[in-house]
């Protein structure tokens, strides 16, 4: 077996770009994806003709059978490595793992990963219903009418019952995300909120209130990956991929091994092992926050606190701006934006800006290493990445 150590520090992110996010009614998903790709290539100081690999995700609001090929055609590039992924969350980052492998094995030299969608402005009524019913077992779960928040509420309720976690503690995660977003001029929601505001917002699926749920947005985001060797000759300081790990435990929540411990644990262990670093070495973390309880469980499973202590950890203020472990420094899916499948990409571009020390008012002081995590399904499919400014 080829050692996973072989990927450590072998590739770097050399270009990043986010489009405007929130309500972007004057752009189709294709245009958002193209705009993001062009911006990331320009940020890397490259020409489009130097791109020989392209990865996109399909768009819910503009689905295509061969999405990446359509984006390549639009850009008039002719890559030798080209694919679209169809799922969100964890997949969005597992393809970074795959792209790094493709560069390390010579399948491509310069890979653009670009994603865009218009869940806010672009969905027809039928497409919106499809989004709602895109999860859940069609024969044994969906007939009971679970909504997407309801699936995550089942996890939250189990954590409350098993560990005494409270609705106030979940709410603190929304408060923390908003505090970060208030320092980010591009975030969709910037007005600070309190725990009381979260608890006073409309109940959606007990114990989740409206403000425990992520946004619905339009937006696009892209990165450029290349070999560490080539990255050294480029304009911006390269941000190295030091570790990557995945964990996949189920698809349907009724089949989960555990409701309160996720495969983020394996994903994190694998990423830390490859990086030769641990949770104590991370200056900040970006954790998938489609609903507040996911962050609490991820903090535990990724080793930032013990199992069952996520509630106390967030209550301590550790995840807030200036805390011991700032989490979702751009505002996350809860307050920055959530256009669906592209959602986690904004955590990745934000991480690069932080590690370049270019995050302005929200800069984490002396940020050198970060853990970036995404999950998809219902806490089903997890990928953790460790990024850093140096390969030691």
């Amino acid at each position, binding site marked *: 077996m080829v050692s996973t150590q072989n990927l450590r520090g072998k590739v770097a992110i050399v270009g990043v770009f986010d489009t405007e996010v929130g309500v972007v009614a004057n752009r189709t998903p294709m245009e958002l994806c193209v705009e993001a790709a062009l911006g990331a290539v320009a940020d890397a100081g490259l020409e489009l003709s130097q791109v020989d690999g392209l990865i996109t995700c399909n768009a819910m609001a503009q689905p295509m059978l061969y999405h990446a090929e359509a984006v390549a055609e639009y850009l008039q590039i002719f890559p030798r490595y080209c694919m679209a992924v169809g799922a969100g969350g964890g997949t969005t980052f597992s393809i970074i793992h795959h792209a790094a492998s493709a560069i390390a094995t010579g399948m491509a030299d310069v890979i653009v990963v670009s994603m865009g969608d218009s869940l806010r402005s672009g969905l027809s009524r039928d497409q919106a219903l499809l989004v709602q019913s895109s999860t859940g077992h069609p024969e*044994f779960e969906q007939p009971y009418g679970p909504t997407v928040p309801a699936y995550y509420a089942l996890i939250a309720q*189990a954590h409350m019952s098993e560990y005494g976690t409270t609705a106030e503690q979940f709410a603190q995660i929304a408060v923390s995300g908003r505090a970060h977003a208030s320092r980010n001029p591009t975030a969709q929601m910037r007005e600070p909120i309190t725990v009381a505001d979260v608890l006073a917002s409309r109940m959606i699926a007990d114990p989740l209130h409206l403000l425990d749920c992520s946004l619905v947005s339009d937006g696009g985001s892209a990165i450029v990956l290349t070999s560490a060797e080539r990255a050294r000759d480029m304009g911006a300081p390269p941000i190295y991929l030091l570790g990557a790990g995945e964990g996949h435990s189920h698809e349907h*929540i009724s089949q989960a091994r555990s409701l309160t411990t996720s495969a983020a644990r394996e994903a994190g262990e694998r990423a830390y092992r490859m990086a030769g670093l641990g949770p104590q070495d991370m200056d900040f973390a970006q954790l998938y926050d489609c609903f507040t309880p996911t962050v609490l469980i991820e903090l535990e499973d990724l080793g930032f606190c013990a199992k069952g202590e996520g509630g106390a950890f967030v209550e301590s203020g550790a995840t807030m701006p200036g805390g011991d472990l700032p989490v979702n420094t751009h505002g996350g899916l809860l307050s920055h934006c959530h256009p669906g499948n592209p959602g986690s990409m904004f955590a990745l571009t934000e991480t690069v800006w932080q590690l370049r020390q270019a995050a302005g008012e929200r800069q984490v002081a002396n940020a050198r290493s970060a853990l970036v995590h995404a999950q998809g399904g219902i806490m089903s499919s997890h990928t953790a990445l460790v990024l850093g400014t140096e390969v030691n």
Partner: protein
Amino acid sequence: MSRILPRPTALSQPYWDSCRQGVLLLQQCQECGDFQFYPRIMCSSCGGDDLHWQAVSGKGSVASYTIVRRGITADYPAPYVVALIDLQEGPRMMSSLIGVAAESVRVGLPVEVTFTDWSDEIAVPEFRPVIQASGDNP
């Protein structure tokens, strides 16, 4: 009613046929004895392929639940309770809880199956709290 109706497959047809008769059936592996849900062509415990349908107690307890305050479509009038049920025989399944005040549901609540006709072909298993026997029963 235009709820999301399950579409039985050749494999799951006996499960749904039995629901119409008011009996919950699970697959039981003839090699290791484990029950499983949902139905599969292999045993998810030991990999065996000798699976028989077996009537089960229909009793279990609430592993987790939520009160859905905003229904998935107009055909699901909110509020309603979606729950994960741990069956006595081992497997976990998603279902609805009915016949109970939503606010009084708790993790661990003992429940039993009941069946609701949704169409001529489909009766759906749902759960309700176990009715406490009166004091003089054992």
